[in-house]
C-alpha cells in the first residue's frame, strides 16, 4: 500500500514520498545516476513546483506544531517520552526485541463520537453511548481535526480571498485535490450552512487546540455556534476576515468548564482540561528538537507583525505573510523519498541547522526505532530503504533512517544506533538523567 506524505506529531519531521513513476522527466533526470546532494535538491525544487499542494499541506502541519499550543505541547512531551522509552529499552541488548506500549502516543488519534441530534444541536460521547435518535454521527479525533484544518487552509491559500468562503468552489476543489472533508461535512450539516462552515471551521479548530482536549472543546464551540446561528445574522453578514477566534475563545471561557488553570497539566493521556498557551510552553526549559526554535521565532515575528498571530487561522487573508512563512518557517527537517522502480529509492534529508537542537540523523535513528517498537505513530509500510536483502529490512526498525547507501553493507544505521545507545548509557550513568529533559514514566 502506498504511504502518504506526512508530518508525524511527535518528532515533527516532514516525510515526502514521491512516486518515481509519475515524476516529470526533468525531476527524473536529476535523481537518476550516482547519489548527489545537489542534484537531489534540484529534483526537490522541481518536484516542489509540480506538487505545491502536497508541499503546502505538509508545511501547514508543521505550522500547526509551531502555532497550536496543544500540538506543540503534545510534541514536546511525547518526544520526551520517546527519549525516556529509548533509555528504558536500552537495557535490552537486541534492538529487534524492543516491544513497548506508549499509551500517550495514541492520544491524538483517540476518537470521540459526535452526534447531530436535532436542529443545530450536537452531543459528544466517549464511551460508546448512543443517543436514542440522531441525524448524523462523526467519529473525530484531534488528528482528524488537524487534517480537516490543513485541507481547508490548503484550499483557502490556493484560491485566495475571492473564493475562500465559496462552498461550491470548495466542493469542486475537493474533487480535484485529495482532501479531508468528513469534519467539514458534519459541521456544515449541524450549522445548516456550508458557507458558514467554510468560513468558521479553520479558526474554530485552531481555537480548540488552545486547550488540552481539542475534541471536547470542539464540541462545545460547535454547539454554541450552532445555537447562536439565528442570532448572529448581522455579524455573519460582514465581510471576512471576521475575528472568529476571538468569539470562540470567549465561548470557551464561558462554557468549556475548564478543570484547572492554564497550562496546569503535563499528562498527555488524561490531561486536566485547561487552556494551553504557547508563551508558557515555548518558554519552558524543555526543548523540542525541531519545533522550539521555530516556534519562538514565529512568536517574535508576530510581535512585529500581528498578522503572523492569525495567519494560519485565515490563510486566504494572510497570503503575504504565509508566502514569507514558507521561506522562514519551512519544516526544520524534511525527508524526501523518490521511489524508483528498478534502481531503488533516492532519499535525502534537508534540515535547517539553525533551528535544530540535535543532529537530525541521530533524532531520526531514535525515532525510527521507537515508533517501530511502540507500533504507534507508525505505519508498517513506512520505510525509506529499498534493500530488501538487508538483514534489517524485514524488522524495519530503520524505517525513518534517511541515508540509503548503494550497498546495504555500507549502511550507517547499525553503527549510528550502536553509538547512540552507548553514548546514552554513559550519559545516563554520568549525569543520572536523559537528554531532552527529565525521564518520565511513559512507556511499558
Amino acid at each position, binding site marked *: 500500500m502506498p504511504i502518504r506524505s506526512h508530518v508525524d506529531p511527535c518528532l515533527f519531521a516532514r516525510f515526502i514520498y514521491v512516486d518515481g513513476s509519475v515524476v516529470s522527466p526533468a525531476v527524473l533526470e536529476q535523481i537518476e545516476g550516482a547519489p548527489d546532494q545537489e542534484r537531489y535538491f534540484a529534483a526537490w525544487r522541481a518536484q516542489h513546483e509540480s506538487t505545491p499542494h502536497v508541499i503546502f499541506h505538509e508545511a501547514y502541519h508543521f505550522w500547526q506544531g509551531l502555532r497550536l499550543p496543544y500540538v506543540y505541547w503534545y510534541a514536546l512531551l511525547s518526544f520526551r517520552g520517546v527519549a525516556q522509552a529509548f533509555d528504558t529499552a536500552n537495557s535490552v541488548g537486541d534492538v529487534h526485541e524492543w516491544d513497548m506500549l506508549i499509551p500517550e502516543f495514541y492520544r491524538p488519534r483517540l476518537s470521540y463520537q459526535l452526534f447531530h441530534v436535532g436542529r443545530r444541536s450536537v452531543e459528544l460521547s466517549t*464511551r460508546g453511548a448512543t443517543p436514542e435518535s440522531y441525524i448524523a454521527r462523526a467519529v473525530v479525533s484531534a488528528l482528524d481535526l488537524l487534517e480537516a484544518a490543513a485541507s481547508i487552509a490548503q484550499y483557502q491559500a490556493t484560491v485566495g480571498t475571492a473564493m475562500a468562503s465559496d462552498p461550491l468552489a470548495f466542493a469542486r476543489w475537493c474533487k480535484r485535490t485529495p482532501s479531508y472533508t468528513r469534519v467539514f461535512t458534519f459541521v456544515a450539516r449541524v450549522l445548516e450552512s456550508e458557507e458558514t462552515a467554510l468560513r468558521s471551521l479553520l479558526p474554530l479548530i485552531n481555537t480548540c487546540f488552545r486547550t488540552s482536549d481539542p475534541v471536547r472543546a470542539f464540541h462545545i464551540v460547535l454547539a454554541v455556534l450552532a445555537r447562536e446561528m439565528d442570532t448572529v445574522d448581522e455579524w455573519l453578514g460582514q465581510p471576512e476576515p471576521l475575528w472568529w477566534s476571538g468569539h470562540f475563545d470567549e465561548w470557551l471561557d464561558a462554557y468549556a468548564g475548564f478543570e484547572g488553570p492554564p497550562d496546569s497539566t503535563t499528562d498527555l493521556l488524561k490531561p486536566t482540561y485547561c487552556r494551553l498557551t504557547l508563551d508558557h510552553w515555548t518558554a519552558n526549559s524543555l526543548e523540542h528538537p525541531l519545533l522550539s526554535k521555530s516556534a519562538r521565532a514565529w512568536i517574535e515575528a508576530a510581535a512585529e507583525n500581528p498578522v503572523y498571530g492569525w495567519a494560519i487561522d485565515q490563510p486566504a487573508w494572510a497570503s503575504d505573510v504565509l508566502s514569507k512563512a514558507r521561506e522562514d518557517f519551512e519544516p526544520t527537517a524534511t525527508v524526501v523519498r523518490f521511489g524508483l522502480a528498478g534502481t531503488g529509492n533516492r532519499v535525502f534529508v534537508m534540515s535547517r541547522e539553525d533551528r535544530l537542537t540535535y543532529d537530525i540523523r541521530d533524532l531520526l535513528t531514535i525515532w525510527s526505532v521507537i515508533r517501530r517498537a511502540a507500533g504507534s505513530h507508525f505505519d508498517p509500510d513506512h520505510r525509506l530503504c529499498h534493500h530488501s536483502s538487508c538483514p534489517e529490512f524485514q524488522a524495519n526498525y530503520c524505517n525513518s533512517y534517511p541515508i540509503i547507501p548503494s550497498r546495504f553493507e555500507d549502511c550507517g544505521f547499525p553503527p549510528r544506533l550502536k553509538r547512540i545507545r552507548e553514548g546514552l548509557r554513559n550519559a545516563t550513568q554520568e549525569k543520572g538523567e536523559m537528554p531532552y529533559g527529565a525521564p518520565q514514566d511513559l512507556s511499558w
Partner: protein
Amino acid sequence: MSSEQENIASAAYGLGQTLDGDGLDGLRELFEDAIETGTSAVPVETAVFMRTHRIRSAFDAYAVAAATRSPAWRPPALVAMAMLIYDENRVEAMRLLVEVIESEHEEATPLAFLLLAQELESLGAIASARDMYVGAINSQHPRIAPEAGLRVGYLLIDTDPATAAQAFEVAELLGDPATSARASLGLGLVLERFDAEEARMAYEEAAELDDEDVAPLARMMLGWLLVPRDRGRAIHAFERAARVSGSPLAARAAYDLGVLLGPGDGDRWLGRAIAGGEASDVGRGRAFLAIFTNARQHPGPDAEAEVQRALRAYEAEIPRWKEEMRATFTVGDDEGA
C-alpha cells in the same frame, strides 16, 4: 471488601488475562478499537489504571488483583501468578497454589488442586499427588474433576486399581467425549485383571465414542482381549481399526486381522501390514504370509500344524503387545487444565 476494591480486582484480573493472552498486542488492539469506534475513554482509563497501579506485565496485573484480598479475585489471580512463574520459581508457585486450595473458590480451587497434583506427581510424591487429585475430583468441577479423575486413574492403575477404577468412572461420567473415551479405555485396562466381560464393555464404550485418538487404541485392546474368547468379535474389532485410513494403528490391526483370518482371506490384510507397517509388523507379516502361502500351496497336516504353531505363538505374544500399547497411552491434552 469495598465495591471499589472489587472493581480494582476485577479490572486488574481482566487486564492480566489480556496481557497473558496477547501481550502488548492485546492492549494495542484496545486502543485501535477505540480509535475506530470513538470510545476513547475506555483505553485511556485502562492505561491510567496501569499507570496508577504500576502494572507492566500480566504478573503485575494479577498481583494487583490478589493484593485486594477479594475472595472472588484473589484465588484465580494467585493461580494465574503461579502458572506464570512456574518455570522460574516452582517453590513460590506451589506456595501460591497451596494458599488457593485453602480457599473455596469455585474455579480456582479445583484448578490449584489439579496443578499441585501434577507437580507432586512429577516429583514422585504419589500419595500426596493422589490426595490433590482427589481434592480436584471432589470439587465436581465440570472440566477439572474429570481431568483429575483421568490423571489419578492412570497414576494408580497398577498400585491401587480399585481407586483407579473409581476415578475413571468419575471421569467417564463427568467428562467431555474425549475425556470419557480415555477414561473408558483406562477402565478397560483396570477391569481386564478382574472381569473380562466388564473390560470388554469398557473398551467397546471407549471405541464407540469415536475419538480419533482413542478409538483405534480401544479397538486394538478389545481385539486382543477377545482373541482367546470370541475370535469373530476380535476379527470385527481389528477390521474396524484396520479400516481407519491414516491411523498409525491401521497396519498393526491389519496384521492381527490377517493372522486371525488365516490362509486365503488373511493374505490380503497381511499384505497391507507389510506395505504400511513398522519394521516389526513387516517382519511378522512376512513370516505369517510365508506360512499361509506354504499352507495353500502344500496343504496337509504338516502345513496345518505349522499354522497352528504360529497362531499359538501369536497369542502368546499378546500380553507383551498390550503392555507396549499401554505405554503409549496419554492422559490427554496437558494444557487442558
